[in-house]
């Protein structure tokens, strides 16, 4: 009865996951979408630039020894009046190279954004799986907490957490703690949508027969949730994670702009924008404009990528 098998003998080798991925409809849809390709390229370049900032940046803006106050307020692409040095994107009041500060700032922004989304994701997936699979009171409590959380704007929640954390940390640690507090604050304001989506998908999956088959074997709830249900609820999570990343980067920038985020010693894009806006009316527009453009490009590309991902993974949502 071997003729029932659909495969011919020469194809005995199992197709690797990579091969399967390249041949998939998903990859095909990617190749067909110019928007997806462009935004993916932009995001990749920006992420690489952020990671390798110390290698790429022409100056180290945080090394006080290399700073020359004479270079302050250099215009972009114009030789400085005193030192004749040329800075692509100009310098700020202390002579720091704007291009370099943007690279380092992007590093902080991306790190905070990614870590916050990761935190929100782990929290949201765990609670969502638990709520969907266990049902009953567990579900009621988790989802009511989520509902309450949703009634507050994310920024407000983040500011609240930030404020509390600031109150309880000693002054000398504040700058070091700031980044981590930022991550937790943004993460906590963002887990709800992960939990909701995962709970919804879990409710669908847990009634499917493969889950019943696993229960029948005597698999425990933990194994069923992690090994059976989790892999099948991840695709919507991926979409939300991407779009959340854009939102988290903006949230971080907003908090930093309001002065409750990344400290000036570790400036993120938001911090740079806050600093830059002070010079706008005195004519030094580049200190504000270039960080702002970078933030816009980054958030927009990630968002477009997320939109495409949603369409590709879930055609019915279009």
């Amino acid at each position, binding site marked *: 009865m071997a*003729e029932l098998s659909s495969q011919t003998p020469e194809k005995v080798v199992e197709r690797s996951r990579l091969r399967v991925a390249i041949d998939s*409809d998903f990859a*095909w849809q990617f190749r067909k979408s110019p928007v997806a390709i462009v935004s993916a390229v932009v995001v990749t370049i920006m992420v690489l630039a952020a990671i390798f900032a110390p290698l790429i940046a022409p100056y180290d803006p945080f090394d006080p020894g290399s700073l020359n106050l004479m270079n302050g307020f250099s215009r972009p692409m114009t030789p400085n009046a005193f030192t004749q040095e040329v800075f692509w994107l100009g310098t700020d009041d202390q002579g720091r190279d704007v291009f370099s500060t943007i690279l380092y700032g992007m590093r902080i922004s991306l790190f905070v954004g990614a870590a916050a989304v990761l935190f929100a994701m782990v929290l949201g997936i765990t609670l969502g799986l638990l709520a969907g699979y266990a049902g009953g009171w567990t579900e009621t409590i988790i989802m009511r907490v989520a509902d309450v959380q949703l009634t507050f704007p994310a920024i407000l929640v983040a500011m609240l957490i930030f404020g509390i954390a600031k109150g309880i940390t000693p002054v000398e640690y504040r700058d070091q703690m700031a980044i981590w507090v930022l991550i937790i604050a943004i993460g906590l304001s963002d887990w709800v949508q992960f939990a909701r989506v995962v709970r919804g998908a879990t409710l669908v999956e847990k009634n499917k027969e493969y889950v019943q088959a696993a229960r029948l074997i005597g698999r425990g709830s933990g194994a069923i949730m992690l090994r059976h249900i989790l892999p099948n609820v991840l695709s919507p999570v991926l979409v939300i994670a991407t779009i959340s990343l854009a939102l988290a980067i903006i949230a971080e920038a907003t908090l930093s702009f309001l002065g409750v985020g990344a400290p000036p010693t570790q400036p993120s894009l938001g911090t740079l924008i806050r600093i830059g806006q002070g010079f706008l009316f005195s004519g030094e527009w580049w200190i504000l404009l270039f960080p702002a453009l970078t933030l816009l490009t980054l958030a927009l590309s990630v968002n477009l990528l997320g939109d495409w991902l949603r369409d590709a993974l879930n055609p019915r949502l279009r």
Partner: protein
Amino acid sequence: MKEAVLSIRDLTVEIPTRHGILRPVDGVSYDIAPGEVLGVVGESGAGKSMAGNAVIGLLTPPAHIAGGEIVVNGQRIDQLTGEAMRRLRGKQIGMVFQDPLTSLNPLLRIGDQLTETMLAHLDISRTEAEERAVAALAEVGIPGAAERVNSYPHEFSGGMRQRVVIALALCAEPSLIIADEPTTALDVSVQAQIIALLKRLCRDRGTAIMLITHDMGVIAEAADRVAVMYAGRLAELGPVREVLMQPHHPYTAGLMGSTPLASRGKDRLHQIPGAMPRLDSLPGGCAFHPRCPRAAARCSSAPGPLITDGDGRAACWFPLDREGVA
């Protein structure tokens, strides 16, 4: 033979995909006469529903009619635009689908749905339409029709809902009804009721019915003639008794053999090896040849030639003769 209500000639439906063009319906021809039930039978992927959807202009893009013609009451309809097709649907062609809920608007009383449909297609007054709505519900066997016109679809059971859909399909007095798996979602006892209803309407009103189903039992019970489809092509067509009891095409014979029958007892079922091929990997020649016990070299080179026998025809290189022993 009387002038056919529906006449399909060499109908071909194509779906362009990244892997090439798929042909779910490939050169299919058949007629349905007034008052006749034509059963279209086949397994999943045979293209039977796709052919029905092509007739009523409900192909989901990118699927489209790529060739052949569809003639309803002497009028060619495969070239019609969306608006003209919409007018034709309901007026000349009624539809009954597997899931009655998709054919009914959940927010409208069923009486209103019936009246609206009639007013759109017939030249009658609203009062008359309302009277006819009650009559239509009574005709399809809904008890207390006069009161039930004011009910919403969810207030009916599955079988009653399917009756409402049939009333809706019939109310504009179309000459053709396309019923796509109308009883598949229903229980056996309700299925028997719906089949009896369809047959009675067909006989009383002279409506032609295209009955699409995978169930040989339903075909045997309801159809006058049957078209057996395989992988988008017509394998065999003819009067139901001859096709089912003395098939020419080995596929029809195989289908009949694999159906458990009371008279066969607990013997091993005859089985056709393999499964219906996927559209993107159709075997060349006769698509059935890899599963066919009678296949020879020429079966893989060209599709089976059409042989005719009385009112029947089959597409096969090595047809079974009427005595029907394989």
